[in-house]
């Protein structure tokens, strides 16, 4: 792999490490501001690391929170299961 490819892979691993740490927040946090910090980060970053579905779902939850609505439960559930699958896939 090229040097840039190695660096990108290392950054992707770090992103997944941080996302694993965010799962608890996604599962249990109901304070909109705290939840928004996590989904906004995922919305902005996941697609760059090759996970556009995670970005899309996180963006939908982010949009709802910005509008003062409850996060859509089905989308939030899909976001959590999608992240869990990614983390399981790499054996984390």
């Amino acid at each position, binding site marked *: 792999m090229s040097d*840039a490819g190695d*660096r*990108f892979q290392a*950054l992707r691993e*770090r*992103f997944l490490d*941080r996302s694993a740490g965010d799962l608890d927040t996604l599962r249990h946090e109901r304070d909109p501001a705290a939840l928004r910090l996590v989904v*906004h*980060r995922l*919305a*902005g*970053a*996941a*697609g*760059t*690391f090759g996970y*556009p579905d995670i*970005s899309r779902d996180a*963006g939908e939850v*982010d*949009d709802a929170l*910005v509008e003062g609505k409850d996060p859509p439960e089905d989308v939030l559930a899909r976001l959590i299961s999608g992240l869990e699958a990614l983390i399981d896939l790499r054996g984390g």
Partner: protein
Amino acid sequence: MSEPLKVLYVDDEPDIREVAVMSLELDGALEVRSAGSGREGLALLDQFTPDAIMLDVMMPGMDGPATLEEIRKRPEHADTPVVFITARAQAHEQARFLSFGAVGVITKPFDPMTLAVELRAILSKARA
């Protein structure tokens, strides 16, 4: 050989900041410095004079628009083109960000292979 285009990239999210710097450097003719907050970015402007500034919109403390306001108070950076980076993709929000005086908006998630191309396209359009 022409001078490299100097870019300051400001984003509180370390993973994205690093991948953005790496992506911009793939261009080969960009000199990139980065900062993890609006305040850090402003401090960097004392020692680095960029040709363009990329600012994340949503940052804790001083956000992107507030950072732009501070940048514009400095006469030497009154006309430096600023591009906002945001995960908020809705058109009315992008129009609002432009109304703060940015020359363009790049939506996150960005494609790391084309970030420099996107930046150059926005800067060319702004100069036209």
